């Protein structure tokens, strides 16, 4: 994995990770990113949804309209088998990258 792909993949990695265990809808995803990063990372409508559509186009995630009693239907995204593999690979890449950075800079991250 080249460095260029690593960086580009960071946003993808966030989304794939968030829906690894359960399907989520777009608004939920953006809220989670903002909340878990304590506001450091935010996704705008303008960038989140296009990315979701693109990931869906690649077959890594799948969106489905789900209706729950008393609520309007929402589009939930879940990881596909292909997405799971990509996520695993991307995680490994990031770990290696972070490890490399750590070795060089001596930065310990929490």
């Amino acid at each position: 994995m080249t460095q260029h792909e690593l960086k580009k993949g960071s946003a993808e990695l966030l989304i794939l990770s968030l829906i690894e265990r359960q399907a989520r809808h777009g608004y939920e995803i953006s809220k989670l990113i903002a909340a878990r990063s304590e506001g450091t990372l935010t996704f705008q409508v303008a960038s989140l949804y296009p990315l979701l559509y693109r990931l869906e186009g690649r077959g890594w995630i799948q969106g489905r309209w789900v209706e729950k009693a008393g609520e309007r239907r929402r589009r939930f995204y879940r990881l596909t088998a292909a997405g799971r593999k990509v996520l695993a690979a991307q995680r490994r890449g990031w770990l290696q990258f972070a490890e490399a950075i750590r070795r060089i800079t001596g930065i310990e991250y929490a």
Partner: protein
Amino acid sequence: MPDWKTIVRERLARLRLKGAREAEIIEELTQDLEDRYNELLVQGISAADARLRAEEILAQSESLAGEIEPAAPLCGFRHDLRLALRNLRTRPAFSSLVIGMLALGIGGNAAIFSIFNGMFLRPLPFKEPAQLVDLDETAPQWKLKYVGVSNADFYEWQKHNATFDSMAFIKQNDFNLSGFGTAERIPGALVTHDLLRVLGLKLVAGRNFSPQEDSQGGDKVVLLGYSLWQRLFGGSREALGRVIKLSGESYTVIGVLPGDAVFPDRVELWVPLAADPNASTGWYLNGVGRLKHGVSIEQAHADLLRVHKSAHLNANKVTSPIITPLRDRFLGNFRTVSRVLLGAVGIVLLIACVNVAALMMMRGAERAREIAIRTAIGASGSRIIRQLLTETLVMAGIGGAAGVALGYLFLRGLLTLMPDQMPRWINFALDARFAVFCVLITGGAAMAFGLLPALQAARVSAGSVLQESGTRSSLSRGSRRTLSGLVVCEIGLALMLLISAGLLIKSFDKVLHVDPGFRPENVITFSVDLPPAVYGKAEQKLTFFRNLVEQLRHIPGVESAAAASAPPLGGHWGNFFQAEGAPPLGPHEQNPVVLQVAVMPGYFDAIGMTFLAGRAFDERDNLLRVGTDGWSADPAKGPLVAIVSEAFARRYWNVETAVGKRIRHSADNAPWITVTGVVKDEKHYGLDQETRPAVYFPYGEAPLESMSMVLRGAIDPEMLAGPARDVLRRMDPGVAMYDMRSMTERLHQSMWARRAYSWLFGAFAMVALALAAAGVYGVISYAVSRRTHEIGIRMALGARPDQVVRTILGSGMALVAAGAAIGLVATLIAARLLEALLFGVSSRDPRIYATMILGVAGVSFVANFVPARRAAAVDPMNALRTE
């Protein structure tokens, strides 16, 4: 609650996604906004504020629309286009700078190209013009490239060649047309009847000459040119069969030539040549031939050479056939000039592109953050390159359109500079080829200045840029190197143009300061042709011209008046001479071709030539001295005299000993003629042309039908034109006068091409220098602004302002020096192409090289110094605080 669905739908309206998909996307986005809105309300934010904040998110819908996969590729392009236009509008100074530079570069190219196109690319208005060639004979031993074709050769070539579809021969001959008001001189040609077929022309009306009419003693018939037909007969078919008087003889009109394809150029009458195949003549014809398909010029030449040699086993070893593509015969001189000019404007455009590329790269660095964010959220590199290229194309498109408009104006200006000397079938209207050229050059320019910065920008590493968030991003080392490289290129190219322009302008200046050998001021000349049917005898001609000169002298304001068969710039009539007492010719030496001019007494005075020895002709020299043929000088009629030019005297004797020596035509029994004087050489063929030795005879020894009158006025010579016309009309209204122009105008026009290209080159060079200086200034200023922080630190650590100036100047001038060195080497190589255009200046003239290098260095110094001083004025505390 706001109706989010409608709002979203409006924002995405231009997306044109497929129905169902669009509905889904809208629904999903709507929900997102509703959730956001509701949450903000829950947090206790007012409904209005909440709505504003949610809408802020949607405000980025332009890029939202762009990021969502479009339904059709064009959609993406339309989006890119919109985005590009918006970006242009937000940076008006930047955009107009880029567009202005491009317009300048493209405008120059468009104008010069349309001239090149008109001259060399647009097909001539004849059938299959690529098959047409000019036929002539060449005589290198006489230093004459074209001597004309003789009667005998014409018949031989036509009969025995195997490579031509057809050939025709022409003698240009003007006629005095009488019977339609005042006599008028009409340019015409004696042509063989094949000419129509060779050119592939169709008559507008009537019929071509028959072979009988085109032979000795055939009926006198004429084909009228289209415009003459319109003028004389209002375009009526009744013209056919009418009889008109040409130079005193009656000709029956049998047809009308087409209007757009006048050949030879400007001719308005065709009359059959009706040559005698058995007569031995001089070389007086021009030929035009149509090659058979698949025959090359070389093959045709070899073929004609074979025919020529077999016909002249003993007689003619001096002349041989020469075949030139028709266009080159007329415009060949301009080929080098127009190519060199195209090269020059090309360089200007290249510099403009280099500047724009540098601007774009600097802009790209500023946009690095925007691009990094887009990359981080998944926009692919190709997507970003596409967006940047669209911006580039939009700017190139606008710049190109402005450039073409500018080029059109520029072309108009250039055409007014051109005197009326271009063949009529050359026109400079804009055509499809021009359109294609403009599109190509604009696209090429866009690629040249846009691709590199786009690639550079797309390579920007997202992480590094984002980490620097808040600080002004600086250029990567690679970009800095590229920018430096661009500066070096610009300086090199500008120097190349400047030196070339310097060489050309110096040449032009040298030409202007050439001593013409006569005094052109206050002189006006015009030509008079006597119709041979009326003035058949030598006595009549001599009497007429003697009277005419006499009466012209009496016009008030005329200082002196005379006549010559060929005044300066008035054409060439050559011959060979033997000189008494001259050293014999060496084995490989050839007698030079000598210009011979018949003059009326007083000519040297009127034209302002200087005597180096001996005396001028007087009326006693100008008595009739021709034999019974009315043509050749006859010593039995009285002493024969001549005046020779300085070059002639030096060629055979020297100036001091020439007077009293004798010369004669190079024929066995030609009579000897005594030299009575030596005049200073005059620049007969133009100020930048070489002179030939010349011999001047009294008119009485060579009475010609056609003479040019020379009037020197005490007043503005233009004022003499009217009275001179009246004099001639009173003497004989059947004699036409033509080609009336002042000598200064003739000189001026003879140099139009040199003047035009020299100044054009100068203008291009100045534009190039200005562009290059602007480029240097821009790049250095930019570099300084990016280094403000660093400079602040240095100064805080004790660097003095002059040290800062020196550092920045040093690095800037190092680039200039590198550019100048490259430009110098390139110029030394390229200047050889210019050599054909130079006059009295070496293509390596050290003074011009030095001046231009100094000029470039000076201008670049200023361009470097201004930003350097600005850097030194940095307040260290401020600089550090802003970071």
